[in-house]
């Protein structure tokens, strides 16, 4: 693959065009406001917050087809066990170094450092190893329970604890067996395990962990790999700490990384964000630049509802992640559908299915854990006021305006990937 692929072309503007653009933007701004449909204006005048609460998950589920997913069908498990040998080869490339910016020993060292705590206590949670120090399921529980006056009060205290212990976003949803793997798999030990849980959880606390914005602008590189690893390490630390907190007050609890259950549906159900074209949970605060951890507990907690802030609608037009993906693993179909690529996708849910095998092969080519689909997404912005404003305006705009927004995002220099200068900027800032 050409290492410049997906890079942002330099924007050069003549002085004449510069002035014209300035004048045009003043006119375009007023024209856009004038073109807002009346129902949108009505919504705006009600004081829209940008997030709409939904009564159920927005994705259509065909219950006649949907079955629980077997963990061993993930591309990772298949690569590690050798049933997907090209994938195994690709994983072997991640540690290789060269003199290229982003691939130097220095860059790979920060990647390894980011992953370090995860590898110590979670055994590489991205490959979903169950029963590690952080994600052990059978845990000692204090005999005396701390009683909360209501599930609402309990939820308040639990969310406070999760944020204090390192989560950036916290949501709660009831335990839903549909998202639990039909069978567990330990790729390190190459062993299938029955999907037995030590108790039937009542609530699932879903936590999102922000990955560093600046480091992620270097994707795909060792530096962005470090940000991904650090996200996993923080997820393991907070997961283990939350388990300790809840078992200390007498409630059976265990934490999970990518193991036990699918993370994206839980993230959606807990109101953290929407599933997007790139197959990732896009959160309101950090876009797709998050990792998701889960806590399963028998404590009865007040739950959150799924939300929408227009991501799926925007994805229909945007496709920036699909254009930037070096593995051509992201769907370019306009609308989500029930189509799947291979056994790595679970049929029966309407979505844009990622081709996880193509994705993993691109990791080998880029010698990194890629994440270009995170970096290129217009929702991947720091939590600054002007990005929130654009999000809100986006939500009010009809579909065709989204194409303009997509181009503006590129013109403003956001979403670059394969940008070697970003690596330099990261180290020197």
């Amino acid at each position, binding site marked *: 693959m050409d290492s410049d692929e997906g890079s942002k072309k330099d*924007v050069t*503007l003549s002085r004449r065009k*510069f*002035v014209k*653009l*300035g*004048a045009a*933007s*003043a006119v375009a*701004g007023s024209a856009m406001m004038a073109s807002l449909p009346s129902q949108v204006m009505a919504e705006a005048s009600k004081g829209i917050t940008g997030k709409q609460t939904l009564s159920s998950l927005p994705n259509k589920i065909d219950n006649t087809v949907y079955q629980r997913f077997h963990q061993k069908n993930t591309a990772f498990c298949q690569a590690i066990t050798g049933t997907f040998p090209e994938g195994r080869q690709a994983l072997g490339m991640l540690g290789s170094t060269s003199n290229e910016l982003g691939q130097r020993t220095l860059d790979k060292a920060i990647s390894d450092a980011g992953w370090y705590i995860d590898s110590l206590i979670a055994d590489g949670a991205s490959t979903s190893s169950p029963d590690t120090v952080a994600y052990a399921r059978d845990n000692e529980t204090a005999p005396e329970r701390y009683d909360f006056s209501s599930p609402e009060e309990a939820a308040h205290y639990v969310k406070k604890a999760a944020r204090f212990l390192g989560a950036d976003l916290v949501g709660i949803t009831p335990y839903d067996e549909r998202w639990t793997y039909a069978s567990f798999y330990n790729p390190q030990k190459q062993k299938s395990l029955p999907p037995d849980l030590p108790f039937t959880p009542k609530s699932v606390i879903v936590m999102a962990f922000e990955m560093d*914005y*600046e480091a992620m602008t270097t994707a795909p590189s060792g530096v962005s790999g470090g940000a991904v690893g650090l996200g996993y390490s923080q997820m393991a630390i907070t997961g283990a700490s939350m388990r300790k907190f809840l078992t200390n007050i007498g409630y059976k609890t265990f934490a999970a990384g990518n193991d036990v259950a699918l993370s994206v549906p839980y993230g959606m159900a807990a109101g953290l964000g929407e599933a997007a074209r790139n197959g990732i949970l896009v959160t309101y605060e950090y876009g797709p630049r998050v990792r998701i951890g889960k806590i399963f507990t028998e404590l009865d907690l007040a739950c959150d509802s799924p939300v929408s802030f227009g991501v799926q609608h925007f994805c229909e037009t945007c496709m920036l992640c699909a254009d930037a993906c070096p593995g051509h693993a992201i769907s370019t179909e306009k609308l989500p559908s029930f189509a799947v690529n291979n056994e790595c996708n679970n049929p029966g849910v309407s979505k844009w299915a990622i081709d996880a095998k193509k994705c993993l092969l691109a990791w080998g080519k880029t010698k990194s854990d890629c994440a270009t689909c995170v970096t290129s997404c217009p929702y991947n912005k*720091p939590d*600054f*006021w*002007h990005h929130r404003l654009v999000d809100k305006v986006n939500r009010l705009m009809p579909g065709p305006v989204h194409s303009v927004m997509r181009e503006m995002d590129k*013109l*403003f*220099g*956001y979403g670059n990937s394969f940008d070697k200068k970003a690596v330099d*900027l990261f180290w020197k*800032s």
Partner: protein
Amino acid sequence: MGVFSGIEILFFFLGVITTLGVLGIIYLKQKRQAGPLSLFLSASGLFLLVFALAWSMSSIIEHEHQAANMGLLFFGLPAILLLGMAWKKLPEKR
């Protein structure tokens, strides 16, 4: 500056600029007898100018330099044009 974050300093100075801008508009109305069109253009220009500065400085704080430049171009330039038009619409000094 240690005690204050970049965004806090930015919004402090934006407050100062907005106050000066509003005083300027009051001056135009009271001392230069600016008409409604001129006042409208200067208020819109001031709003856009403050927005352009806020956008661009915020982008610099988050190390997005191209976004900062484009912010000045897309919001700053129209702001200058509006302020220029407002100036042209002022009645002659007596």
